[in-house]
């Protein structure tokens, strides 16, 4: 083999670079995300109404796809009403429907997103509800 030494050093460097993230995080297990549902808006609901527009497992897996469809339906087709799995009608709006219940960005949205290492840019435009909402100090629909 030509330049055997250099090739082997190169391979070692490559191996270190590729496996660096594993070594770097060794022994530091990230906390399993536990999204919280204890916002004032949700607490106010009776037990049997504490459901999302679709069942929870489905939402957990598909909310991003649903939101992708929502923005097209609402904005591009002017169809701003969604009929949930239980027949209830919702306004199609991330900011005014989703975030009204899930007003705790840090404890809900970001809990999983940061665990998964993804940064959706939804909040670049869509405003989070004021901090007071999450604490229940500010009333809705002002």
């Amino acid at each position, binding site marked *: 083999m030509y330049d055997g030494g250099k090739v082997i050093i190169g391979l070692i460097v490559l191996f270190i670079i590729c496996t660096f993230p594993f070594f770097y995080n060794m022994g530091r297990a990230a906390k399993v995300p536990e999204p919280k549902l204890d916002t004032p808006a949700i607490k106010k609901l009776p037990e049997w109404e504490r459901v999302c527009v679709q069942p929870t497992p489905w939402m957990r897996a598909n909310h991003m796809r649903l939101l992708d469809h929502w923005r097209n339906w609402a904005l591009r087709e*002017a169809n701003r009403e969604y009929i949930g799995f239980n027949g209830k009608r919702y306004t199609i709006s991330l900011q005014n429907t989703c975030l009204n219940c899930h007003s705790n960005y840090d404890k809900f949205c970001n809990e999983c997103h940061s665990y998964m290492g993804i940064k959706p840019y939804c909040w670049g435009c869509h*405003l989070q509800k004021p901090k007071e909402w999450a604490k229940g100090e500010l009333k809705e629909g002002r």
Partner: protein
Amino acid sequence: MEVNRRQFLKSIGLFTILGIGGWSAFELLVPGQIEAQYARKKEALRAKRWAMVIDMTKMDEETAKRCIEACRRIHNIPDFYHPVDPKYKVDPKKARRWEIKWIWLEPFEHAFPDLEEKFMPESLKEKLFVVLCNNCDNPPCVRVCPTKATWKREDGIVMIDFHRCIGCRFCMAACPFGSRSFNWGDPRPYVNYRNPEFPTREKGVVEKCNFCAERIDKGLLPACVEASNGAMTFGDILDPNSEVRRLLREHYTIRRKPHLGTEPQVYYIIM
């Protein structure tokens, strides 16, 4: 056919690209169980073709400013002259360049540059006209958009999808009315009043007046019309019995640059 090493590597590379691309295409084509369970809201206002008549005889500066302020607050429009925090202060020249205009005031000579007369009534010449996106029926901005991020709704409103806009600004070059604005930087430090029901924008997208499409779909009139004390009328221009049509029948109205064929849908009663 014998496959040599070079060809083998080439084909491996090709299949890798196809494989990666193919998988994501598969994901897109199988959208899960999202059923199209959506509807238009019952209370939504409907029209074949929305249009606006602005009665400048009723539109004094006071009223105009109230309309503009209503729009600014409802749509979270930044004001670069007055940052939320003084540390974001910029010099007025920059503020003017970055300005976001949905509805604003222009003197006659700028609002109607081709109609300016040397010896026209002073009252008209010095009057400030309310201008906004004309939501043209034949919009050049829609024609040039390379991604369909801006398009004309069935009821004629020219919309912008901020999710899709790539910020090429071709539409700004195409608009003959200067009605489109670009977010040269993050607007949020300049949004003084935050309406929690409407999004702000990110840097890098184009925006403009949308005839309050989000309010119409909820059954509300555009914010400026509501604030105008009757100086602005909004309605269906294809409905012969609409208020808009009555005004057009009873008054001589003008439009901005009608000769360009863009068919503006904002009409002005000037005297």
